[in-house]
């Protein structure tokens, strides 16, 4: 337990005397473990990190201090304070976070401890990088009043804040932008409360605010994650609700022997504290509060904290006292284990736990030293950075003892002799102090037994006005202890006289005092807890597909609410919005079905209103988007990018489009495909490339001698020019660094070298030209009848022979919106419906390489497999074709909710299609990129068979046989080199140690050959 104090002091208390009377009487059990008096002013909030390793405290001095238990120091007295009050535990401030310009009102650790959020009366919320203090990740601005409460979504997707400006804001952790601002329940709110501590339910479904009003009655507003609906609330308190705190556990009904083993829905438990000095505890499966304790304190409740096992609750008040309430499992139910809880999270939001964590690793058998070596090497790098710190912790256990083999006593004796004393320039003595201990700044040292017992955080009174009176006048023990109260689930309070000083012998401190209490079932579950939390950020996602019935919704309150609002004519509109719970459920599932999976759509409100109209509006938007981009290109320099050519602009309204579509399908034969043709122009210029700068100029019908009309083709490349003439008018031209080609009237296509030399006699096209395209030595011609040909003019071979676009354009009025010819002569057609096809010459077939509406891309989530630096900026034909769609996919799961299994499958399918597409496009860079990603995902998620197949193919036959079909390269990359690159990835998961070993050995054999 942990309290903050108005005097700027933070005190860590031992819980065991509170829990057990024996310990209370035992004078050897210290009651106060540590006092930290570093804050300069009133401390408003203190919070343990989820791991229990750190404490964060925020106060009126605008600072947030992060504390860590100092491991290298044995228990010692604070110099200048009496032995009785010595700190049994040493907590050291490891970081001071300065950014707020006003009092810090609340701090909150994210579920995985990677972020720390703080809010302040300066109207901001600051997100700190808890891995790298004092780095600020984001400052959330938007509140127009003092921000007085913070809570993280248990899966780490959101953070919510509540402020005096009568709003509650939910922010996304993805981009730290505002997700929603809820004001309605707070409209009536008058007056202010000291704090507005809101809380998110452990299952993630509900967010409960402090101080809301409903029909001029104070309530705690329940906000559903799904659509941020505010239909329910906790009512009953007579004054404003100051604190809401969910029990960290999810409960299920206690199974009674003999009764039918009907599995009941899990439910949550929530404590609500108010200015009216009473506390209510609610179960989401009950209509009425489980227990209400009136007059618990003399003043308003300031903070509430549940014990880690979920059965105890600590409540503190502005009157300076702290109460402890103890529940039994009969009252609350059976708490779900952390595994069950994470299973609920996983099934609801999806996340990967497959990478084994350190604790689990210890149970795995290491079969191969190579693997170990590899892992060691990785760890080494981290260790090196913390070298000194790590070394220090090694000796730390022996406590304050030995420096370089010398005991402290020896050092002392010789200190004066050894002491280095110099003279400064101005003649002053300067002593170099002898360092007797370094600080353990690393994260390497944990004390699990300890964190298992530490209870969450507490905040006690912050009566600023008192502070001056307090100081100097009140004896230490009294002011620190306040009155400590215990209560055993009944309002009967047993005072615990902690104001009697706790004498403790100097022999005592060397043992960990808290370890003796044993109130929690070992640190095991805690470490698991933190493990789960650690992987949480990998794939948090909201719920859309999951059924809300999994967790008992708070129907009870709903109905109560409805009753109330019906009774009062003041809120008829609200009543209309709250159908019964069943209806709502149905409605939700309906909406879910109708909702198209598109990441672009985020507003669920609009879904509900016009679910049917959406798909068309969606496609319209898409179309417009494309048109826009195409137009942009046109507006730029004339055809600046020779590789991307707008083909046609169809700006039809989507309604007309769909209508037409039906008609077309019925009547128009597909053979009537007709592509637009360029009309003859008098003259035109075309920039082939800007670096090297290369232009083609065409001048038609230049009158030459004797009245013969000729066309002139001029090409300028980095100042060098050449010119040639053609007999017929030039309709279109294209060029690359290697060739220049022009299509003329009479279906003639001529090709010239970079110096203007004609390479071929004119090629006769089957029909008039529509588009001409060049990349490298490849020339592509698309004719008006939608046939496509690609030649390699240097090698003088055909790559694609008069292939019809019929198959990809058939059956609809789609148009080609973009054409791309890769450097390997693979033509790619982007169509107006967002699909892109490439022609695969070896298969002589069209391959679908991209689909903007591909739901796979939107369901896939492989963020966790992305390399640290964002290599998504991988460029190549695939990226060009897919555009932004390919990047949105990787985070889709955060915006979408899919059961984990489904998400895994879609991600796999998506990644596989990306690898295949890159391969077909012969884009080696992208192939490597996607292959790595794919393998990383396989490794993370533990798919052995697929991984093995890939490795096998990349490795090929080790002992060469003549009959082998195996190619040693793929799209120009050596397969075995690729495998070498993949091995470190595979080595990350101990599960694949055999595979790792096999590949490693065989590669070694190959190398030795």
């Amino acid at each position, binding site marked *: 337990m942990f309290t903050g104090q108005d005097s700027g002091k933070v005190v860590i208390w031992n819980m065991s005397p509170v829990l057990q009377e024996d310990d209370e009487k035992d004078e050897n059990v210290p009651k106060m473990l540590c006092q930290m008096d570093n804050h300069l002013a009133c401390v408003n909030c203190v919070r343990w990190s989820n791991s229990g390793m750190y404490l964060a405290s925020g106060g009126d001095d605008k600072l947030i201090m992060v504390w860590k238990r100092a491991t290298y120091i044995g228990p010692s007295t604070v110099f*200048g304070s009496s032995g009785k009050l010595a700190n049994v535990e040493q907590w050291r401030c490891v970081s001071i976070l300065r950014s707020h310009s006003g009092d810090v009102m609340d701090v909150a650790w994210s579920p995985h401890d990677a972020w720390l959020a703080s809010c302040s009366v300066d109207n901001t919320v600051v997100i700190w990088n808890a891995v790298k203090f004092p780095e600020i990740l984001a400052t959330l601005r938007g509140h127009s009043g003092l921000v007085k409460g913070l809570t993280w979504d248990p899966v780490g997707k959101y953070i919510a804040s509540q402020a005096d400006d009568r709003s509650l804001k939910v922010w996304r952790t993805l981009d730290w932008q505002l997700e929603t601002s809820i004001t309605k329940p707070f409209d009536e709110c008058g007056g202010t409360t000291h704090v507005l501590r809101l809380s998110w339910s452990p299952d993630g479904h509900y967010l409960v605010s402090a101080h809301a009003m409903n029909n001029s009655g104070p309530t705690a507003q329940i906000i559903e994650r799904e659509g941020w609906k505010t239909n329910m609330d906790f009512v009953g308190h007579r004054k404003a609700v100051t604190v809401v705190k969910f029990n960290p556990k999810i409960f299920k009904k206690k199974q009674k022997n003999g009764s039918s083993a009907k599995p009941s829905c899990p439910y949550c438990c929530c404590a609500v504290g108010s200015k009216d000095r009473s506390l209510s505890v609610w179960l989401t499966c009950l209509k009425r509060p489980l227990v209400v304790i009136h007059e618990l304190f003399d003043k308003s409740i300031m903070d509430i904290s549940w014990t880690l096992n979920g059965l105890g609750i600590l409540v503190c008040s502005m009157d300076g006292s702290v109460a402890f309430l103890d529940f039994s499992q009969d009252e609350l139910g059976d708490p779900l284990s952390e595994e069950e809880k994470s299973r609920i999270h996983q099934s609801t939001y999806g996340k990967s736990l497959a990478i084994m964590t350190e604790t689990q690793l210890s149970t795995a058998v290491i079969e191969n030293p190579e693997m170990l070596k590899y892992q060691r090497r990785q760890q080494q790098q981290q260790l090196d950075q913390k070298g000194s710190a790590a070394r220090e912790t090694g000796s730390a256990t022996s406590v304050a003892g030995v420096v370089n083999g010398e005991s402290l006593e020896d050092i002392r004796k010789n200190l004066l002799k050894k002491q280095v004393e110099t003279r400064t320039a101005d003649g002053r003595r300067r002593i170099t102090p002898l360092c007797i201990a370094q600080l353990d700044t690393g994260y390497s040292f944990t004390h699990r037994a300890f964190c298992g017992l530490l209870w969450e955080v507490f905040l006690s009174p912050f009566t600023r006005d008192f502070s001056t009176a307090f100081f100097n006048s009140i004896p*230490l023990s009294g002011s620190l202890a306040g009155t400590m109260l215990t209560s055993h689930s009944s309002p009967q309070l047993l005072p615990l006289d902690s104001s009697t000083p706790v004498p403790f012998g100097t022999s005592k401190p060397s043992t960990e005092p808290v370890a003796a209490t044993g109130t929690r079932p070992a640190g095991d579950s805690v470490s698991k807890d933190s493990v789960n939390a650690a992987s949480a950020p990998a794939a948090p996602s909201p719920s859309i597909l999951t059924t809300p019935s999994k967790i008992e919704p708070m129907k009870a309150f709903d109905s109560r609410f409805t009753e109330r609002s019906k009774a009062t004519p003041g809120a008829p509109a609200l009543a209309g919005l709250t159908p019964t719970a069943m209806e709502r459920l149905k409605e939700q599932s309906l909406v879910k079905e109708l909702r198209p999976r598109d990441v672009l759509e985020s507003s669920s409100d609009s879904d509900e209103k016009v679910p049917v109209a959406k798909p068309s509006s969606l496609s319209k938007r898409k179309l417009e988007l494309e048109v826009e981009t195409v137009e942009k290109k046109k507006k730029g320099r004339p055809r600046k990018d020779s590789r991307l050519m707008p083909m046609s602009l169809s700006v039809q309204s989507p309604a007309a489009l769909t209508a037409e579509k039906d008609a077309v399908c019925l009547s128009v034969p597909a053979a009537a495909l007709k592509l637009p043709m360029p009309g003859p122009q008098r003259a035109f210029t075309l920039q082939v490339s800007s670096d090297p700068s290369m232009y083609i100029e065409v001048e038609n019908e230049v009158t030459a001698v004797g009245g013969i009309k000729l066309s002139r083709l001029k090409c300028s490349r980095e100042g060098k020019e050449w010119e040639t003439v053609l007999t017929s008018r030039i309709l279109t031209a294209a060029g690359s660094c290697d060739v220049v080609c022009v299509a003329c009237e009479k279906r003639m296509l001529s090709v010239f070298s970079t110096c203007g030399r004609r390479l071929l006699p004119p090629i006769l096209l089957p029909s008039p030209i529509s588009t001409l395209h060049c990349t490298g030595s490849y020339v592509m011609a698309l004719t008006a009848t939608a046939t496509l040909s690609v030649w390699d003019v240097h090698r003088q071979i055909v790559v694609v022979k008069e292939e019809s676009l019929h198959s990809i354009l058939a059956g609809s009025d789609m148009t080609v919106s973009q054409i791309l010819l890769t450097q390997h002569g693979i033509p790619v057609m982007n169509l107006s419906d967002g699909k892109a096809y490439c022609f695969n010459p070896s298969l002589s077939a069209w391959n679908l390489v991209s689909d903007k509406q591909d739901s796979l891309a939107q369901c896939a989530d492989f963020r966790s497999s992305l390399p640290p630096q964002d290599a998504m900026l991988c460029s190549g034909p695939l990226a060009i074709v897919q555009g932004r769609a390919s990047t949105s996919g990787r985070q889709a799961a955060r915006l979408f909710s899919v059961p984990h299994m489904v998400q895994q499958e879609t991600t796999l399918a998506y990644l596989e299609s990306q690898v295949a597409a890159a391969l077909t496009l012969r884009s080696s860079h992208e192939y490597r990129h996607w292959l790595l990603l794919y393998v990383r995902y396989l490794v993370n998620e533990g798919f052995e068979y697929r991984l093995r197949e890939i490795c096998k193919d990349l490795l090929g036959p080790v002992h060469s046989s003549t009959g082998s079909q195996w190619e040693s390269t793929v799209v120009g990359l050596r397969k075995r080199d690729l495998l070498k690159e993949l091995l470190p990835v595979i080595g990350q998961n101990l599960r694949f140690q055999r595979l790792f070993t096999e590949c490693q050995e065989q590669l070694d054999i190959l190398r030795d050959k």
Partner: protein
Amino acid sequence: MAKVSVLNVAVLENPSPFHSPFRFEISFECSEALADDLEWKIIYVGSAESEEFDQILDSVLVGPVPAGRHMFVFQADAPDPSLIPETDAVGVTVVLITCTYHGQEFIRVGYYVNNEYPNPELRENPPLKPDFSQLQRNILASNPRVTRFHINWDNNTDRLEAIENHDPALGCGFPLSCTPIKGLGLPGCIPGLLPENSMDCI
């Protein structure tokens, strides 16, 4: 928050003759490496009546100070007897150890010092003119009084607000067996800061 906190001050060679040097072994902890040196001073309070008689026995720079725990021995010569009023030579007075960073004092440790003649005869009948060579100095090492001040540890110029870390508790209940405590702890320096500070005592 203070970057430097004093963990312990051990008084060496105590009691000792009046003329022998003071020796304090100081261990302190630094939470962040300091850019500049710390300046430590030993001040001997010649007379409780007036600051005039304060003697700075020595001042020393300590550095460099990386993060961690450090210790050093601070040795300073005995006070100059000629500067001590004769009436105050025998009896209880105070020695102060102060530490400043960038000229700002952040900690002050005060000890009661009892100067007396170990010789019972002299004790009974002290000479009119104090015989310093016969005097023994006894520092009440078990009862340091520690006062901490909040200072600005950073280089930036904004001066520290005068909020202090008041520690309401300590400072009472000190067994005042030795009577003349006048001026103990804070004789003189920075009187402006005084009311805002609390004292920790043992």
